[in-house]
């Protein structure tokens, strides 16, 4: 059981790294690492059943390999390396991230958990990943980082999903992953267009539509 907890702790560290780093390429590699780690979790928790194997292979292939390559290819086309100053600065974002993670840990043990889930870190880690994903989305200006934020958000929800494997049959799980892929693919196309029209992936120009 402590192996699972160690993996989850590692995920939280990746979250913090994401919040503090300003360079895009390492961030994308961090997200893919996080995806790969999460892909292993179902095997560790529920052992080797047909369902878990399919799920983890799909997740690994998708989050670990396909999506990062997609994002890296977009970055080469666009050719930007560094995230500009986020709305509230790096240090405050990381501090806020830490604050939210501790809050989610506190919040988690108030929730009426089932006996077998009490000591596992699943719920607090999923809530903290969720909140850091949202934080990334809200504070960053670059379109790429917003997509990364969305990916971290998805990972948070995915962690929570592992607990309830029997609620989500394989077909639906595959559907969720497929949706994720389609989503990222469409975001990639739109980012490409943004680059072609604004020659920069910043979303400052993307605020012309207002009253």
């Amino acid at each position, binding site marked *: 059981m402590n192996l699972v907890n160690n993996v989850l702790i590692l995920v939280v560290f990746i979250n913090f790294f994401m919040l503090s780093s300003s360079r895009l390429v390492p961030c994308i590699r961090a997200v893919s690492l996080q995806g790969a780690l999460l892909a292993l979790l179902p095997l560790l928790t529920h052992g080797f059943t047909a369902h878990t194997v399919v799920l983890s292979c799909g997740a690994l292939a998708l989050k670990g390999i396909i999506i990062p390559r997609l994002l890296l290819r977009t970055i080469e086309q666009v050719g930007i390396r560094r995230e500009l100053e986020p709305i509230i600065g790096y240090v405050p974002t990381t501090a806020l991230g830490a604050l939210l993670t501790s809050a989610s840990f506190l919040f988690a043990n108030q929730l009426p958990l089932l006996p077998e889930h009490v000591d596992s870190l699943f719920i607090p880690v999923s809530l903290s990943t969720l909140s850091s994903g*949202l934080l990334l*989305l*809200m*504070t960053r200006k670059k379109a790429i980082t*917003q997509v990364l934020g969305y990916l971290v958000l998805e990972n948070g929800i995915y962690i929570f999903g592992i607990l309830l494997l029997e609620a989500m049959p394989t077909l639906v799980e595959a559907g969720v992953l497929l949706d994720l892929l389609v989503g990222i693919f469409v975001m990639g196309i739109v980012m490409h267009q943004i680059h072609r029209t604004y020659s920069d992936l910043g979303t400052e120009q*993307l*605020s012309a539509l207002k009253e």
Partner: protein
Amino acid sequence: MYWILSALLAFAVSGILGFTPGLRQRLGTALHLLCHVAAAAFGLYGLYRFAFSPLPDLILFNLPLPLGELTFRLDAISAIFLAPVFLVAPLGALYGLGYNQQHTTLHRPRKFRFWYGLMCAGTVGVLTADNAILFLLLWEIMAVSGYFVVAAEDHTPEAKSAGFVYFTATRIGTLALIAAFALLYPLLDLFRFPAAGALPAHPPLVFFLFLLGFGLKAGFMPLHVWLPGAHSAAPSHGSAFLSGIIIKLGIYGIVRVTSFCAAPPLYWGWTLLGLGAISGILGVAFALAQHDIKRLLAYHSVENIGIIAMGLGLALLGRSTDNPALIALGLGGALLHVVNHGLFKSLLFFSAGAVIRTTGTRDIDAFGGLLKRLPWTAALFLVGAVAISALPPFNGFVSEWLIFIGALQTLQSSLSDTAAALMVLPVLGLIGGLALACFVKIFGITFLGTPRTPAAQDATEATWGMRAAMLPLALACLVIGVLPTLTLPTLQMAAHHWTGIISTYPTPLPTAIAGLGWVSRIALVLIAATLLLTLGLRFKARRAPKTDTWGCGYNQPTARMQYTASSFADGLIGWFRFSLQTKKSGAQLSELFPKPGQFYSHTPDGVLERLVLPLFQHIENTFVWLRRRVQNGIISFYLLSVTLTLVALLIYIF
């Protein structure tokens, strides 16, 4: 009752036929007129048949309307309101025929005819609808078609803004009515109108909502803001129908709604009396200060609505203090004034339209000496003017006389009781005096004296169609004025249907019958004597030499030296300075030999320009400012609002 419904359909069909495009337009207009005349014939025959059956006539169609069902009812009250509709509507169509031939301002007559027909159909429907949903449905159809009639010449900015104000006011009225009927929903079974006197008195909120809704349509003083603009922007036969018939639907609404309750509380009567007095006096005061002939006539509609409201207030007082004479006379006077006003106001608008058609402007100061050039129109306008100032030989006097007698029924009551209702007499007296001053002003300055502008110089008489439309109205005014006793039985029945007590009613109208008998005899003698003497004198003066008017020795009098609209009413406007806030410019001669000066006075509509428009402007600015804050275009703000809503919801739940 079937006749009335067939009249409604005929009006609708006339609207549709009027819409025929292209080369068959002349056929379309002819069919439009034909349908209008047919509808009027059906309607009048239906009313004639109804006049002899005391009980209301009910028809139920089992078409599943979403909420109520399709029921129509004809009783004495709606019959009285329907009578002017079936007279003015076809005459309006006939007038329109003549009006459009030479007049090019109405560059979309097809659209106008369509909405005009629909408006008439809506009016007939509203007057006979018997359940709230159908009432609101037809009320809104009539209001929407009214908007298109008002904004018929919408290429002019003035018509556009008038249309906008009209439609907003009507919609606020409808919302108030919806709220009122919804509040009444538990009492009415499936929105059907209850029998007279079936419900307990409406709670104050419901009454004031009804008053707001119907008052906005009727045009009581504070709620009249849309009326002058709308009635002056609409083409003349449109504004004749609007002013003569449509605003009466507000009165009809109040009459129908107050008939639901068994014992109306006292404050209903007093509110209506107060509103009527304010509308009357301020209406005629504003009318005096106007230069535009149609705005002036529109303000007079406000004044006459005030008089009708006073009659209605008296009737309500009668019901609260159970004084049958007061009910019958108050309601009888009010309903007869509704019919009379429908007739002479349409006559005035038609003749004003004829004047505007030839001179091309609505400003009174540009007219003058039109009697010699438009003899027929001038005579008909004179009939309308004398009738609206409630002077004896015509119908205006008869209905005001009934209201006077009604008020006098409270003569012996103590101050705490209904004696204050006697104040109606001096108020009506003042209104009558001011109305007389106003109509002498218009008639004198428009038709008499010498023409002030070249346009008035070569004015031409109205076409035969227009004159044919005006003549029956003038005759109707004369007939009701000279033979008023014809109307009493229907008025008596209306009072019965209004209070719901059919049988046990002594007819308190004998005093009125005797009086009206003498009134008609005096009117006949008056007309005969005046005609005789005038013809005699004209005969004697046929060879009299013609010279210039005696100008007290000044031998080059010019047309501009005549009295104009603003100078004529300057004295009277002075008294109402506070409420009119007239802006005067010029007229101060400084040096000994003053250079040529120019006097001009303009009276904005006080309530609209100083209160309503700035208020709405302010509200709009705050809304736009708020929207700019919420929709500020920054994507992280949007995501922040999602998270904040989530957190708020979680806090709310735990």
